[in-house]
């Protein structure tokens, strides 16, 4: 079972934060098909958030085919997001770590690394579209 948290300063609507956290957990393999999501009542009580917010997030996940509600029991994960790529995470992460070490040796600070990654990521995505 995962546990939700909320970032009050992020400006991202709470229901979207919940959705992101479920999707994130699916991508990282923390949640699997058949796992139960936290009960609406427990999330509401735990985070002091509106139960409708939780319901809205769960409905959205159902719509995306990632979860399904079983009336009277709870909401369960029905889909995956890793696309079978979870096995590739390890090697990719190691490659990225090597790249990060190289960037630091070249004198880049955290902010420069993030900026370089984001701009390369963006231009690569744009090339894909074009």
């Amino acid at each position, binding site marked *: 079972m995962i546990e939700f948290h909320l970032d*009050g300063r992020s*400006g991202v609507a*709470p229901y979207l934060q919940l959705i992101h956290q479920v999707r994130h957990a699916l991508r990282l393999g923390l949640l699997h098909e058949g796992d139960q999501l936290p009960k609406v*009542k427990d999330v509401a009580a735990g985070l002091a958030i*509106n*139960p*409708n917010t939780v319901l*809205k997030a769960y409905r959205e996940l159902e719509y995306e085919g990632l979860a399904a509600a079983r009336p009277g029991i709870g909401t369960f994960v029905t889909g995956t997001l890793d696309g079978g790529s979870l096995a590739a995470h390890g090697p990719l992460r190691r490659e990225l770590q090597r790249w990060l070490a190289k960037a630091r040796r070249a004198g880049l600070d955290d902010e420069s690394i993030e900026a370089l990654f984001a701009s390369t990521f963006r231009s690569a995505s744009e090339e894909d579209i074009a």
Partner: protein
Amino acid sequence: MTAAIETEALGKRYRTKWALAGCTLFIPAGHVVGLVGPNGAGKTTLLNLATGELAPTTGTIEVLGNRPAAGPAQLARVGYLAQDAPLYAGLPVADHLRLGAHLNPGWDADLAHRRVERLDLDPKQKAGTLSGGQRAQLALTLAVAKRPELLVLDEPVASLDPLARREFLQDLMESVAEQEVSVVLSSHLISDLERACDYVIVLVDSRVRVAGPVDDLLAAHHLLSGPRRDPASLPAGMEVVSASHTDVQTTLLVRTSGPVLDPAWTVSEVGLEDLMLAYMKQPATRRHHLEVLK
């Protein structure tokens, strides 16, 4: 859809001063509604009108489809927690529950006892010696155990420390999840409301400045910044909530139903707190209308 509260041109005047004027609202049932506004904006007046503590000077108000406090049946449907969690200081906790059972036909004694146990309240302790947080929790217990369809809370957490505040809201949200009760609560603490409420009403100068579901409001508002320009040159359908200018730059908070297409603007999303504050600061454009009413 049934309305928790529906008002039409609702107004309340004390002698010569309008505490609330021209208030037209439709609040659907099933929401947790946050009522926000500066002191003296008319929040308590609106809540007192909804619970029937006050009678309107002008217009109409219906609560759950009926006149507020129209009779015992209507009174049983609405739970009211007034400011400062009014309790009988000399009465022990257990007597408050007994009183609640005696006064409310739909009293859920099980629920009340479960809650008191969970809150770790000593039934023999006098209410006057409880901490602020415990008093608020006991008052909420009394309001919830009558099993209302609508819960009206006037500044329920204003006097509580951050921990007690969070616990109170956790407790309230759990009740909402369990009992599917509609809630209207007023508060100054927008960060709390951001979590707890899915519908907000901003009241300024005795008028409703903006009202609607939180997600809809957030989706419809954008912060635009770009080279200095006249807000009047914006496309139709874009309503400026607030504007600030430097000699080279203009920053606008706008409400729009469509996307912002002009590439000259850098568009960013706006949080609920900034949104509410912008509406609270917005100058009252209909002030002269108020003068006419007087």
